[in-house]
């Protein structure tokens, strides 16, 4: 659910608007303002291209901050040249920030921008007019903030209620912890065993890099479907969004988990995965010990998986 393509499109649209604006400023002879508008275009268009091509999402927000701070600085400079004209552009700045940046960053930037705008307005207008403008600006800034904040809160509460991982269709990590707690409590009442199998697709990161998101997501969905076909009613599959699946097996001893591991290896080896070819799995497992909690149980299964991965690498080196 990346927002970068939408932000890239937005920057392009604003750049187009700025091109039209600079033509009108040229016609009316406002060359100094036109020059500043052209600098804005020079910032927005490369930003849009970068965000469109960028695959590392964590870089995106730093680029956005740089772009917005540059835009804010240019608008402030325009305000000092022609406040009556540039105040209109200043009105659009808060809502752009709230759309593009994480809300806490947007609050800080728009607050500084608002204080500077109030200062510029108060030095260029009469007392009454500047007060009226400042109130109107404050109300508009607050409206944009409320819109963005309530959107963020609603999205967060929806995210907290989700139980399914949209990439693979399996249950998500949050639901894994909840379900583990339930099954551990149930196991304590029934005195029956509980096993957890951790399965990771080898080099999933590399598959994602080489084949892209669509093919990788299809692989995860097909893999989930294949695993589900091997399970009993009551067993559940979870995905941590990073290529590792967890299979929860109530009333199943360690021998049962071992049998499932062998069946899984055999099944996966028999499938030719479209576009990707063969895939290799690493599997770790654990059976619930007395007085163990969900976190410890999960950690033990994950540690066993890491150990299996290391052993597989050593064996590979030995083969060579």
């Amino acid at each position, binding site marked *: 659910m990346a927002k970068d393509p939408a932000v890239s499109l937005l920057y392009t649209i604003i750049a187009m608007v700025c091109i039209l604006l600079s033509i009108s400023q040229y016609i009316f002879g406002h060359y100094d303002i036109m020059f500043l508008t052209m600098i804005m275009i020079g910032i927005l268009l490369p930003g849009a291209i970068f965000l469109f091509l960028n695959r590392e999402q964590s870089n995106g927000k730093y680029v956005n901050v740089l772009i917005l701070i540059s835009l804010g600085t240019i608008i402030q400079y325009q305000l000092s040249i022609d406040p009556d004209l540039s105040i209109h552009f200043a009105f659009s700045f808060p809502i752009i920030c709230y759309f593009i940046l994480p809300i806490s960053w947007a609050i800080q930037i728009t607050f500084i921008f608002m204080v500077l705008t109030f200062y510029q307005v108060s030095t260029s207008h009469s007392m009454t007019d500047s007060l009226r403008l400042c109130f109107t600006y404050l109300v508009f800034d607050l409206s944009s903030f409320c819109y963005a904040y309530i959107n963020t809160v609603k999205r967060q509460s929806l995210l907290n209620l989700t139980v399914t991982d949209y990439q693979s269709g399996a249950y998500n990590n949050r639901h894994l912890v909840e379900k583990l707690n339930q099954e551990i409590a149930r196991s304590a009442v*029934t005195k029956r065993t509980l096993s957890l199998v951790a399965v990771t697709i080898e080099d999933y990161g590399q598959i994602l890099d080489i084949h892209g998101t669509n093919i990788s997501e299809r692989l995860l969905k097909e893999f989930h479907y294949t695993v589900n076909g091997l399970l009993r009613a009551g067993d559940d599959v979870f995905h941590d969004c990073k290529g590792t699946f967890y299979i929860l097996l109530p009333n199943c001893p360690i021998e049962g988990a071992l049998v499932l591991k062998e069946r899984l290896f055999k099944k996966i080896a028999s499938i030719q995965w479209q576009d990707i070819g063969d895939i290799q799995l690493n599997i770790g497992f654990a059976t619930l010990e007395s007085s163990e909690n969900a976190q410890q149980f999960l950690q033990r299964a994950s540690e066993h998986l890491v150990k299996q991965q290391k052993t597989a690498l050593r064996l590979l080196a030995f083969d060579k």
Partner: protein
Amino acid sequence: MNSYPPVHLIKLAYCLILGVGLGAIAVLDYPSSHLVFSIATMLYSVLFLINAMLLIFKYKLKTEGYLSQTLIVSIFAYSLLSVKYGGALNAFWIYFFPVVAFFLFKLNTAILLTAIYIPVALYIIIETSEPLHQAQMVLSFAVITTVSLFLSFVKTRTNNLLEPLIGRDLNTGAQLEKFLRPTLAIEITRAEREGTGLLLMQLKIPFNDKRPHKHEIEEIVTKYAKSISDNLRPFDRYYRLDKQNFSIILPHATTQEGTRIAQNIIHGVTLDNANKTTFGLASLNVGDTADSLIHTAQKELNYVSD
């Protein structure tokens, strides 16, 4: 104030600041512009202050859907009024319309409203500004409308993606009805495989009013949900049915245990008519399916005595 959720506080702060801000603008406008415009601004300010008071006392209007419509119509009228009386300094109100429209209404409605407003905005711009400013205002209006549209579009898309992935009801924390039959079928298979008991409990909430209001239903249902959640074991699951009832899956439970849980649920609900709550219990028998268990539990609905 501590009991207010953050969204409620934000709405309250917004209404208060808007009310005070508009009041101040009305006072500033009084000597410099027409009396009618000043009074309109003051009325607008009072509207927000009244809404703030209602929010403080947590009063919810039964016609709250109309508040959005009132707000959008008033912004429409106010910005038009500014052409006649307010002048260039009040033309900034055109920027509010797209933000408010996309915030308060669904995407399609907001697009329609904004499309209707665009000619009005252009008329206001032409009437109140000089030619160089007109270009700047048109383009600022275009940018604000585009960003509002993007925000609304991203919100709609996120909701559409997330809604099918949701497992619980937002207000009560109960699982959604669509998960009841599949989970019950799995639990039946598990109980038969492990040779253990399984109990399905239906809970019907009594309402004093024959046609209770949505808010009233939510308030009562939330109280029941809390009591249910407090009285269940970690591996029991409860589902919200038809918005007003609950279904509870109790693995490894007998009818006696189910009755005790039902009594505890009634004791946990702080409502006058809680003892009129009816419960239906269905214990797993040979040949039962998810549908037959639900049917039996619904047929057995009855009061539970202490």
